[in-house]
C-alpha cells in the first residue's frame, strides 16, 4: 500500500485523554523519538488540577502538546495540526486548540453514550460527525477493540490489556509521522524489565498500531519532518524543574559548598524537591519542613552554618517566607529562593502559568529590603540561571530570588548541555580564624564590592552574633543610631546594585541592534516573543527582542539598548510589572505594555499583532 508522504516544516500534535489514559507518557515518548530524529522541538503538558478527577469528565482531561520541526522551534505551538483524543471529554476540552482544517484522531470507543454524558454533550450531539462537517479531518480508531485484538494471546487480564491502549495510539502516530518505534521499545523494555509480560504487551500494542496505520486506508497521506539545522553537539531533553535541579548540583560542585534545601510541597515547584532528594550523593541535603516558614528559616540556619541555603516554593508560599527572606537580607547570608510562579492571586490557578510575582520578588518585603532577582527564559535556561543565582548569592552574600514559572517548570526542550569542566568556579570569601591577641573580629566589615565575609561556626575566634535588629556598621552590634540606620540602608542597597558589575551585559536575542520596535520580555515569554519577532521581521518590520534575565539589578547597558529603538513594547503575562520597574528606572523612555493574563503562554500570533500595532505608534 503506498501512501504519499508529505514533507512538513513544522507540526504540532496534542495528545489528550483521561488522566488514566497515559497521555503524558505517550507525549514524552513521542518527544524523545522526535528529538532522536533530529527535530527541534518544544513541549508543554496540560495537567488537570485534580489528581483523580472523575473519570471521563472534562475536569479529568490530561493533555500534552509537542511542536517540532525542521526549523528552529521556540514555543509548544499556539494551536495544533493534529489532535489525538481518547474520549469525548478530551475532544470537548481540546477542540479549541485545533487549527482550522486540522486532523482529529479519535478513539471511537471513548465516544459511547456514557462518555458523551460525562463530557456533558447533549443527547442530540454526535460530536465526531459534527467535527467532520466543521471542516476538520477525522480518523476514527476503535482503539480498545484493536488493542484487545492485538493482545488476545497475551494471557493478560483485560485491565492490563486496556492499559496498552496508549501504546497502540502511539504506534499509529509513529506510522503517520514516519517515526521509528525502536526508542520506545527500548524504553518500555527497560521500564518493565521486572515484568516482561507487561513489556511484551506494550511493545506488541505499539507495533500493532504502527502496522494498523499502514494496513488500513484511514489515512490518505503520511508526513515527514526533516531534521532541523541544529547547532552540532550532544543534546538531551529537559524540563525547567529538572534543569534547576541539575543546575543546583552544578553550583554545589563548583563552589565546593554543600547544599541544603528546606522546602514545603507546592505546585508547580515540588519537582525540585523530588529531584534534589535523589541527589544525596552530590553533597545535597533536603528537608521537607512543617511549613513554608520553617522551610526558609531552616535554609537560613544552614546558610549560617556554611551551606548554600535554598528554599523553593510558588507565590503563596513565598508570601509566607517574606519575613524570613528579609532576615537573610539583613544577616547578609547567601540564600537562594526559588519561586516557580503560578497564576494568582491567593490560591489562584495552581497548575496555570503567570508572571505576576515580579514586584513581590523585587519589592515585596517590610522595610528597605533589596535583594537580587534573576529569571530563566526557557526550560533549559533554568540550568544556567540557577547556577548564576547560586553564584550571586554565594559571592555577594545576599538572598537571590530565582523566578521560574509553571510553563518553564513543566515545559521541555532539547538542551545542548555543557561539560562540568566548562562551568566557572564559584568563589566564596570566608573570614579567617583568629587568635586571642588578634584585633577584634568585625562581622560586618566589607570589601570594595560591599560584601562581608562568611564567618562559619567552628572557625576559631570568630564567635559573633548576628540578628534582624539594625546593626552598627562593621561591628554588627545593635544600633538605633539615626545616621547609622541611614548609612546601613544605603549600604545594603548599594551592595545589591554593585552586582550589576558582575553580570553579563544585556544581549539582543533576535533582530538587529537598532530599529523600529524593541520587544522587551522576561521569563517564560522568551520563546513566543522570539518567534513573533522573527515572524514580523519576515514580513518586513524592523523589530528586535531583548530578554532580561537579570531583573534586579538590571544589566548596566539596558539604557544604551533602549536608546536605539523608536518604540519599546513590554509584553507580560501579568498586569504590567516589569514595565513599572522600567518606567521607574528609565523615566525618559516611553514603554508600551501588552498584557494577557489567561494562565497560558502568549500565542505567537497575538504577539505578532501587538508588535505590528506598536510599530505604528
Amino acid at each position, binding site marked *: 500500500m503506498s501512501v504519499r508522504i508529505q514533507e512538513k516544516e513544522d507540526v504540532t500534535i496534542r495528545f489528550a485523554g483521561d488522566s488514566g489514559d497515559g497521555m503524558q507518557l505517550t507525549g514524552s515518548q513521542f518527544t524523545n523519538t522526535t528529538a532522536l530524529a533530529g527535530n527541534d522541538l518544544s513541549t508543554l503538558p496540560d495537567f488537570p488540577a485534580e489528581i483523580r478527577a472523575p473519570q471521563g469528565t472534562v475536569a479529568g482531561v490530561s493533555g500534552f502538546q509537542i511542536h517540532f520541526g525542521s526549523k528552529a522551534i521556540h514555543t509548544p505551538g499556539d494551536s495544533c495540526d493534529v489532535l489525538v483524543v481518547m474520549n469525548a471529554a478530551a475532544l470537548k476540552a481540546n477542540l479549541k486548540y485545533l487549527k482550522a482544517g486540522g486532523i482529529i484522531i479519535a478513539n471511537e470507543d471513548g465516544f459511547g453514550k456514557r462518555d458523551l454524558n460525562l463530557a456533558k454533550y447533549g443527547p442530540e450531539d454526535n460530536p465526531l460527525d459534527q467535527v467532520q462537517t466543521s471542516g476538520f479531518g477525522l480518523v476514527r480508531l476503535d482503539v480498545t477493540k484493536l488493542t484487545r485484538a492485538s493482545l488476545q494471546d497475551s494471557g493478560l487480564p483485560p485491565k492490563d490489556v486496556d492499559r496498552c491502549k496508549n501504546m497502540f495510539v502511539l504506534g499509529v502516530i509513529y506510522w503517520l509521522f514516519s517515526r521509528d518505534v525502536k526508542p520506545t521499545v527500548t524504553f518500555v523494555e527497560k521500564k518493565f524489565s521486572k515484568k516482561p509480560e507487561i513489556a511484551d504487551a506494550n511493545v506488541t500494542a505499539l507495533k500493532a498500531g504502527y502496522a494498523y496505520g499502514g494496513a488500513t486506508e484511514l489515512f490518505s497521506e503520511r508526513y515527514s519532518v526533516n531534521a532541523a539545522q541544529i547547532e552540532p553537539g550532544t543534546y538531551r531533553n529537559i524540563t525547567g524543574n529538572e534543569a534547576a535541579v541539575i543546575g543546583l548540583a552544578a553550583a554545589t560542585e563548583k563552589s565546593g559548598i554543600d547544599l541544603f534545601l528546606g522546602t514545603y510541597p507546592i505546585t508547580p515547584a515540588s519537582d525540585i524537591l523530588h529531584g534534589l532528594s535523589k541527589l544525596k550523593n552530590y553533597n545535597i541535603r533536603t528537608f521537607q*519542613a*512543617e511549613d513554608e516558614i520553617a522551610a526558609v*528559616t531552616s535554609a537560613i540556619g544552614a546558610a549560617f*552554618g556554611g551551606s548554600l541555603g535554598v528554599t523553593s516554593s510558588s507565590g503563596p508560599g513565598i508570601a509566607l517566607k517574606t519575613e524570613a527572606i528579609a532576615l537573610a537580607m539583613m544577616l547578609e547570608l547567601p540564600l537562594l529562593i526559588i519561586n516557580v510562579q503560578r497564576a494568582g492571586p491567593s490560591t489562584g490557578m495552581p497548575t496555570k502559568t503567570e508572571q505576576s510575582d515580579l514586584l513581590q520578588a523585587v519589592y515585596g518585603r517590610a522595610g528597605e529590603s533589596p535583594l537580587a532577582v534573576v529569571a530563566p527564559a526557557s526550560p533549559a535556561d533554568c540550568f544556567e540561571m540557577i547556577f548564576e543565582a547560586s553564584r550571586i548569592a554565594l559571592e555577594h552574600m545576599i538572598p537571590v530570588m530565582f523566578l521560574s514559572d509553571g510553563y518553564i517548570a513543566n515545559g521541555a526542550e532539547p538542551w545542548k548541555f555543557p561539560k562540568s569542566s566548562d562551568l566557572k568556579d564559584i568563589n566564596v570569601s570566608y573570614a579567617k580564624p583568629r587568635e586571642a591577641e588578634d584585633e577584634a573580629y568585625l562581622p560586618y566589615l566589607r570589601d570594595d564590592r560591599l560584601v562581608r565575609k562568611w564567618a562559619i561556626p567552628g572557625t576559631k575566634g570568630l564567635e559573633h552574633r548576628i540578628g534582624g535588629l539594625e546593626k552598627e556598621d562593621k561591628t554588627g552590634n545593635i544600633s538605633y543610631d539615626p545616621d547609622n540606620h541611614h548609612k546601613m540602608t544605603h549600604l545594603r542597597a548599594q551592595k545589591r546594585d554593585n552586582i550589576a558589575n558582575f553580570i553579563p551585559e544585556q544581549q539582543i536575542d533576535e533582530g538587529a541592534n537598532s530599529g523600529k520596535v524593541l520587544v522587551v520580555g522576561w521569563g517564560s515569554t522568551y520563546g513566543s516573543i522570539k518567534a513573533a519577532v522573527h515572524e514580523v521581521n519576515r514580513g518586513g518590520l524592523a523589530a528586535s527582542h531583548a530578554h532580561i534575565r537579570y531583573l534586579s539589578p538590571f544589566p548596566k547597558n539596558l539604557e544604551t539598548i533602549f536608546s536605539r529603538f523608536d518604540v519599546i513594547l513590554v509584553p507580560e503575562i501579568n498586569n504590567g510589572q516589569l514595565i513599572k520597574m522600567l518606567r521607574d528606572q528609565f523615566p525618559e523612555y516611553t514603554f508600551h505594555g501588552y498584557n494577557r493574563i489567561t494562565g497560558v503562554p502568549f500565542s505567537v500570533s497575538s504577539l505578532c499583532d501587538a508588535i505590528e500595532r506598536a510599530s505604528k505608534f
Partner: protein
Amino acid sequence: MSVKEKNTNGQTAMPKLKGKDFASDQDVRWCPGCGDYTILKQVQNLMPELGVPKENIAFIAGIGCSSRFPYYMDTFGMHSIHGRAPAIATGLKVTRPELSVWVITGDGDALSIGGNHLIHALRRNVDINILLFNNEIYGLTKGQYSPTSKEGMVTKSTPMGSLDHPFNPAALAMGADAGFFARAMDRDPKHLNEIMARTHEHKGTSLLEIYQNCIVFNDGAFEVYTDKQRRSETALYLEQGKPLVFGNDADKGIRLDGMKPQVVKLGDEFSESDLWVHDEKDHFKAYLLSRFFEDNRHEDKLPRPFGVFYDVERPTYDEMVNLQVEAAVKKMGKGNLDDLIAGTETWIVR
C-alpha cells in the same frame, strides 16, 4: 583571665575557660531584677563544663525579652525572627551536626507564634537544646497575656480577664513525643545548672522549661513554687529512682492509686515504700507527671514537679539525615556531575 598561658616549654596551652569567658562585650539590657539574669549566668557557668570548643557552640533565638540572650553570649549566635528559632536550629544542626546548638525562646515565641516549629522539632528529634523561658506574659510588647497565662488574668489586652485556656508545656511536649522534658526555675540556680547539664547531655531535642519571673509585668507568677519558704510544700523535686517526697519535713508523698496520683501523708498509714518511684525512662509516668498542672491559686492538690520528667533517647534526625547521605554515597558512589547533566537519553547532532 588571659585565654592563653605559656607552659614550661614555651608552647601555648589552653587553660580551662570560665563562665565569664562566655560573656560577650555587650551590656545586658534586661530590667533590673529580671529572672533572665540568673539563667544567663547559669548558662555561662555551664559552658566550660561541656567539653565543647567555644567556636562549636551556637545560640539561636527568636523574638522577645529572652531572645536577646545570644547577644550576651560570646559564642556564635543569631537573634532571628519571631518563633522560628527551632527551624533555624534544625537547618544548622542537620548541616553541622558537630555543633552544640541551643535555642533560647519564651512562652510567646515557642508556644504561640512558633508553636508549630516547636512540636515538629520535638517529634523529629533534632539534637538541639531548647531553653524555654516561661514567664506567663508578653514582656517585650509590654504586658499582654501569653499562651501560658492563667485563665482570667487581667492584662493590658484582657481588661476583663483572659478567656484563653493556657498551654501545659510539659503535656504539649509529651504529646509531641519529646525525648526529653525537664522543668527548672530561675530562683533555684543550683538546680537550674544541674538540669541544664542534663538538657545538654540528652541526645535529641531536649526541652527545658524554666519558670522565669517577669518583675515588671507578671511579678510573682511562680512565687508559690519558687519562694524559699513555700517551695518545699509546693514544689516536687524529681530524682531518678527516688520516691516522690515533698513537704516541709519531707512528710508527704505521691502514691499511685491505680492510675491516679494521690498526695499521702507519710506516717502510720503510708511509708516511702508505698510511694511512686520516679523513673524518667517511663513514658506513662512522665505523662502522668506532665498532668501535675493544677492552678496554684486553688486549694493545692498536687505539687508542681521540677527536674527531669522524661529522658529517653531515640535516633536523632540530624544523625539519620547524614546516615542517609552516607548510605547514598556507599550505594551509588560519589555523584558524577557530568553523568547527572547528561541524564539517561542523549542524542548527537552533527
